[in-house]
């Protein structure tokens, strides 16, 4: 170490979710086999591994056997094996069980799980194998030398909200790495910079996202059995909105419920959290929750663009894995097994690079090739046009999907383009549909028994941010924001935000200003994706800040 504030490593992994942990575990295994002694450093922004992890989740388990061949499968903390699996069509008060599975949506043999729990387990395995894991540190800067990635730097702390250094200023640590692996999860803030700098989205579709909001409940015995799984379509979404709900029965009388909504919706006043609350009032859903208590709340976006939206996954000295790479299979809504697979493939390539001490694109290209040879390709290619097909609504989407099923995914139109979610939002004047508040006008009085306002839900995420720091969400252009976002769109951020970060305050004289409560932020990144105009940039707050998910 030349500098007191720097550390060097062979491999730096940014992010302690399933993809980053799988990379570290598999790489440690390969290096051990080869008798190589290399340093693997994994940095996680959450206060501990798992605290920022949120997923449904119903997980395909096979890949865990590959990742942990020496481990007794029963040791992995899955929740319940899927025992009953149905897709249900909802109207406001009615429900209708589909007599068949939507293609690709069967869950036979899968497990319900808390992905946070799984990650905590994987982290103990990784540490046993010699991986150094440091949680509670935010990495906010990619280090470059001669235009190439050379590592990353943790965030400076001890800075007040004006950006001024305080007396307890602590400079961030520089991490010099031979190879840096970006495993930040959905809409990774550094991966986003990397993709822009090296134009990794060139000739690809742009990424498109959904927002998932989720609650875990503790319910009376008998409300639902462990392993009972329901996916819902229809209410509260209309034919132009893509998405659906889920109900997963867990052990110990817990149940996970959630609603996933495609962010290419048009209504600038659409509020996924509130729609989720409305969804819970459907008798088919509310019966599972009756007599129960809310235990946890959380939200996260997920990349759904699929095959054509995967950026180039490597550049000199760097790889991208997991959700940061956009590896989620639709319509199955599954990414965990792909994240793990991508991590393992990245590990193989990283081992190759370490063995030859060559971290250039020449060697790293093997990673992307190996993905084309893997189950990732098998899962994603046949549905490569699935999600884009739904951008014009459910009916057109279903037609596209039908033809894709016949043609092995191509459809009759060839590759369908995607459009950034934020561009789909219409101005208040342009939007011709019924505004959200009118659509759900009887549903927005929350009773705090079955339904909750955002602030209350946010409380159940355990979220916490240091008071003294620069707000980690930034309006890119305050002038255009006032003129366009507030005046023309009515500040959609106040509605789409899953955690009441944005408040449009109107004073007595009718003057409007946006107030930012960054301390509520759930790190879902919707604002970075869905804000029209010049947008909002989400960056990492101080390490250890954010939600404190226990079993999400």
């Amino acid at each position, binding site marked *: 170490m030349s500098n007191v504030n720097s550390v060097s490593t062979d491999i730096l992994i940014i992010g302690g979710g399933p993809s980053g942990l799988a990379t570290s575990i598999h790489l440690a295994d390969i290096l051990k086999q080869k008798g190589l002694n290399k340093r693997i450093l994994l940095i996680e922004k959450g206060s501990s591994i798992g605290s920022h992890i949120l997923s449904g989740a119903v997980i395909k388990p096979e890949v865990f056997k590959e990742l942990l061949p020496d481990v007794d499968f029963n040791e992995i903390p899955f929740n319940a094996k899927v025992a009953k699996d149905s897709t249900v069509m909802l109207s406001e008060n009615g429900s209708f069980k589909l007599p068949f599975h939507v293609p690709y949506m069967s869950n036979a043999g899968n497990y319900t799980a808390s992905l946070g729990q799984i990650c905590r387990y994987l982290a103990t395995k990784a540490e046993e194998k010699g991986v150094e894991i440091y949680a509670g540190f935010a990495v906010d800067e990619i280090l470059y030398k001669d235009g190439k990635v050379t590592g990353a730097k943790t965030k400076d702390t001890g800075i007040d909200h004006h950006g001024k250094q305080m007396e*307890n200023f602590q400079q961030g640590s520089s991490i010099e790495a031979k190879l840096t692996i970006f495993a930040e999860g959905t809409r990774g803030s550094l991966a986003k910079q990397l993709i822009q700098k090296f134009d990794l989205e060139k000739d690809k579709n742009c990424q498109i996202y959904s927002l998932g909001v989720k609650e875990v409940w503790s319910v009376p015995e008998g409300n639902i059995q462990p392993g009972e799984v329901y996916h819902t379509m229809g209410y509260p979404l209309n034919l132009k909105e893509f998405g659906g709900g889920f109900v997963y029965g867990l052990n110990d009388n817990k149940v996970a419920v959630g609603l996933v909504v495609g962010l290419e919706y048009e209504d600038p006043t659409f509020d996924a959290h509130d729609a989720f609350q409305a969804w819970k009032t459907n008798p088919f859903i509310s019966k599972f929750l009756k007599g129960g208590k809310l235990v946890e709340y959380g939200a996260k976006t997920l990349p759904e663009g699929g095959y054509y939206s995967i950026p180039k996954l490597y550049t000199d000295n760097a790889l991208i894995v997991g959700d940061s790479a956009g590896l989620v299979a639709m319509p199955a809504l599954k990414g965990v097994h792909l994240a793990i697979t991508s991590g393992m493939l990245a590990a193989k390539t990283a081992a190759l690079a370490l063995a030859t001490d060559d971290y250039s694109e020449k060697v790293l290209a093997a990673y992307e090739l190996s993905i084309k040879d893997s189950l990732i390709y098998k899962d994603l290619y046949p549905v490569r046009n699935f999600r884009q097909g739904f951008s014009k609504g459910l009916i057109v989407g279903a037609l596209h999907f039908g033809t894709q099923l016949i043609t092995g995914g191509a459809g009759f139109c060839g590759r369908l383009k995607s459009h950034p979610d934020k561009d789909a939002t219409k101005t208040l004047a342009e939007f011709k549909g019924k505004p959200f508040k009118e659509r759900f006008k009887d549903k927005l009085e929350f009773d705090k028994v079955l339904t909750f306002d955002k602030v209350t839900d946010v409380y159940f995420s355990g979220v916490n941010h240091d008071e003294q720091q620069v707000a980690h969400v930034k309006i890119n252009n305050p002038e255009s924001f006032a003129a366009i976002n507030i005046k023309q769109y009515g500040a959609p951020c106040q509605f789409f935000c899953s955690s009441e970060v944005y408040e449009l305050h109107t004073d007595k004289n009718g003057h409007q200003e946006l107030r930012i409560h960054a301390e509520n932020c759930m790190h879902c990144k919707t604002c970075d994706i869905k804000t029209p105009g010049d947008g909002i940039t989400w960056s990492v707050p101080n390490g250890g800040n954010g939600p404190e998910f226990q079993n999400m």
Partner: protein
Amino acid sequence: MALTIISLIKQVPLPTEMRMGDDGLMDRTKAKSIINIDCQFGLEAGLQLKKQYPDAKLIVCSMGPQSFEVALKTAISMGYDEAYLLSDRKLGGSDTYATGLAIATMLKHLGFSKDSKEPFIVLAGRQTSDGDTAHVPSQVAENLGIPQATFVETVKADGEGNVIAKRIIEGGYQMMKLPMPCTISLTPTGIPPRKPSLVGAIKARSTKVTVFGIDDIGLGTEKIGLGGSPTIVAGVVNIVSERAPIIMSEGHNENTLVNSLVSNFGKGANVLEKKEAAEKKTSEKPEFPLYDNRNGAKGIITWAEVTNGSISRPSIELLTPARHLADQLGNDTKIMTVLIGKNIHSLTQTLFEHGSDEVIVVDDARLEEYLVLPFSSIIAQIIKERKPEIALFAATTAGRELAPRIGVKTGSGVTADCTGLEIGEYVNRKDKVINKPILHSRRPTYGESKLATILGFVYPQISTARAGTFEVPAKVEGRSGIVSEFKPTIDKKEFSVEILKTVRGEGNSVNLFDADIIIAGGRGTTGDGLELIKKLAETLKEKGVKAEWACSRVVVDEGFSEYARQVGQTGKTVRPKVYVGVGISGAIQHIAGMKESEKIIAIDRNPKASIFHFADFGIVGEYQDILPELIERVKGGFTFGIEPSKN
């Protein structure tokens, strides 16, 4: 000069958070531990001193189970160099007296004592969240025989081998100059602790914590653990939350939020269903003989603190429990009050009129301002001569450091910050006797969630009494008593600490004690220099309501208010009918000064501000929006349910 900075830390359970909904507590962080908050400020103070002494070695010490290594490693990741843990089963049950001794013994073992050739500074937190005594720093200092400053906000070195400390006192602060070595305890209001750095965390992983057992440091078992502790915890009961769950205002703008408050206020606060105390354990009282182990000790000694030329209010309040105990003890038990200062004879009359039977006067020009070293030495000398059975101090910043320092000199345990003092008995099953009479000192602990009863077996039994808890005793005009002079022997060394400056506001110009409504502003309302706070209080006054404005300590520090208006542990303890806290986050020091108010309304922009846990009604919003609206309502006749006086 190789300076060593030693930080003493304790690992404590994370104070549980209260849910703002209506189903009470939620302990979602159970089993999670943190470094005690005050100790974190001590750690940061050490890192700040390191800026002035780049070559200083930073070491961190703790006493407790092996699991405390986590906290010690966190200190390393913040920038400390070495870590030591005193961990031994035999230490279990140690009270603060035994803890102070054990830690001092470890420091001596590491080569730090008053005779050390190399300078060192011991830093500690003011108090811990699971003990709240604030004793250990004083006891460590006394055991090491070195000077101390407690309740310190910031420390700096003066470059000549001295430490300059800003010590918080009632109504102000003092700048003090201490020679090295010395002990300093930090309040959680100074420079907040820094975050660990990644490089530090990596270093911490490979740093070995040195663990000592008591044999390693040559500490005998007779002095520690349950057996070595002069006090025992005789019982702990849960304090059922004193306040019912808060009612939050609902609304989308200031207008509807205030509407909601007015309407909720009209309906009244939530009422706490008082659960009857659980049936008392009626374990058979054995037929042991009574045993009076006072061994001739008799009488109650109190210390009268002099500020701004008069006896401080908490010292007069203290005469209420003193009289109560004297009556319970009977047998012509006297109250002796120690009065130390310069030209103070005129103050004796006040003490007699409020209940002292004798005033022991130590009049010395050097003793005009309170200093812990000479004062503790003098009072210990008086105690040795007079042999009282009980010594009481007001739990002020002075009393809380003085009592434990005296306790080490007399071998007594000290019970801190008591809210109840009674004479009782103790069934001593080991010696098969019933000790009677014995002082039962009751004190809230664990963040005010439990009430512990502490008994002491070494005489005098020493306790400090929480300010604002006991009434000022009724004045008996013309009551008189004995005045006696005491001539102590004071070593010149007792004056090694120098007070550079004392800033203390006049305490009498504003009468917060008589106000029916207090509107208090915190850091969050300084944007307009508290104009809106003052205006709301003014508007209420215009309506004929006895209203006053007040503030939290930060506001005074930043120069927006005189000290007389400060509410909190180092300010005033008030009990108005309605207390409106605006922009006050609810630091425990502030809460201590207002939680006895009949109704509490909290207004703050941060829904997670802890003041909401202590309030009956709450509004989440910006004060600039809410207060003008509230002022309009007051103009329209809303006076928070207080009848305007018609004059």
